[in-house]
């Protein structure tokens, strides 16, 4: 009877969603293991495992110490820092899988993606105005925004160079990016309307995470295991250097020609 009462009490919408996400996290982890992806995506697998651990730890701490204890707050945010770090590692892992086969492109993308991440993070901290409270708030949001921006930049980069992306990788990346972006949106709105919308925000946060989990679960269950890609045919870098600059020259000329058409019209209108 006591157990029944304890089960009925947390049957609120948010808690149900929370329980559902934990179940889905477990199913996702089992699917990763079943399809032998644990070795192939070690950081992503560790990240999923860490989210399960986090749910268990935070739920236990809430039950033992109550919600308002300072230690609970510290443990919750400490575990969140670990989870975000692991998510970042999962993004790095997937980025390597997508780009590392193309040596030149990978070297270029590494610098570019790093710059994007740093730039977004720096801009996020710029709004803290040296206030420690806001710095701690903005670091969290800034990290999530950086992760989202890096993924979007990577996908744009791959699209520009027409690089093939396996459907599994694409779905995992989209899931990671969507969660990060919605986290930033939810969190930013929480800061503004903290009093009125706190419960609603927490529910939305769980809901967006739930959607992300479903995307991953669908990808891990349905999409075929990415085939080992043969490295692209290589050309000597000297040849690239010469052809590349000549191609740029020709593109310049074509653009110039178009400009002349424009200028001629301007002159004679």
């Amino acid at each position, binding site marked *: 009877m006591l157990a029944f009462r304890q089960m009925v009490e947390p049957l609120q919408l948010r808690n149900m969603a929370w329980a559902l996400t934990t179940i889905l996290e477990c199913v996702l982890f089992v699917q990763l293991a079943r399809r032998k992806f644990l070795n192939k995506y070690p950081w992503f697998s560790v990240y999923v495992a860490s989210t399960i651990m986090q749910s268990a730890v935070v739920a236990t701490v809430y039950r033992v110490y109550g919600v308002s204890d300072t230690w609970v707050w510290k443990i919750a945010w400490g575990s969140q820092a670990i989870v975000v770090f692991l998510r970042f590692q999962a993004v790095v892992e997937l980025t390597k899988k997508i780009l590392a086969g193309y040596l030149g492109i990978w*070297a270029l993308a590494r610098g570019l993606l790093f710059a994007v991440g740093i730039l977004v993070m720096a801009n996020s901290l710029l709004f803290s105005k040296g206030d420690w409270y806001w710095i701690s708030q903005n670091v969290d949001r800034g990290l999530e925004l950086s992760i989202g921006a890096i993924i979007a930049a990577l996908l744009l980069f791959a699209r520009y160079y*027409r690089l093939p992306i396996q459907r599994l990788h694409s779905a995992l990346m*989209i899931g990671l990016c969507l969660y990060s972006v919605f986290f930033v949106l939810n969190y930013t709105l929480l800061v503004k309307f903290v009093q009125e919308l706190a419960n609603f925000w927490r529910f939305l946060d769980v809901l967006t995470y739930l959607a992300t989990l479903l995307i991953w679960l669908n990808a891990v269950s349905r999409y075929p295991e990415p085939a080992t890609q043969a490295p692209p045919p290589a050309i000597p870098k000297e040849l690239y250097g*010469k052809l590349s*600059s000549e191609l*740029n020259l020709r593109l310049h000329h074509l653009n110039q020609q*178009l400009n002349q058409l424009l200028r*001629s*019209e301007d002159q004679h209108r």
Partner: protein
Amino acid sequence: MSASLLFFIFSALVVLSLLLWASRPPKHRFTPGLDVFEALSQSRHCFRLAQVLQALRPEDTQYLQQIGQAALMQALRQQRRRIAQTYLDCLQEEFETLLEISRALAVMSPEVVGMEEMERWKLSLAFAANCAYVRWRLRLGLQPFSGFTLLSSMATDITRQLDAATSRIAEAAVRTTEGSRLGRGNIDGL
């Protein structure tokens, strides 16, 4: 609304839009089997700039108005504008082909030059914007221009430069690949 709030909301929406943009179905890739040199040596539409400019000259059709055929003159000018638009399409197609070749080269190269890739990206943006602008103006109706002689000579200059550039590409490629049959094989199989 604070600046911080606006920044985060705006940035998140921008990232979301970019993600949607990047997730669209991929465009066509450079056709395998098409030789780079063959693609580079294909006839270039810019050679026909002089003829296109000539066709757009008002003097070419002005006499029709003088002999009382104003309607015919308008029809002819409209037709020539359509031809100019087709020329623009071809120019854009040529530009896209060159871009595709350069992308394929970058993918195959063990080392790429960031500045050149950036330059190419900026060029592609500028070209797309210019192309859209010229097309829009052509649709509205090109106005007559008198500096045709100057333009024509400029076009000839560009054609000459392009010829020289293509010859240099071929020479460079032959020099570099003479000692490396592998490289040449890969280029052919692009």
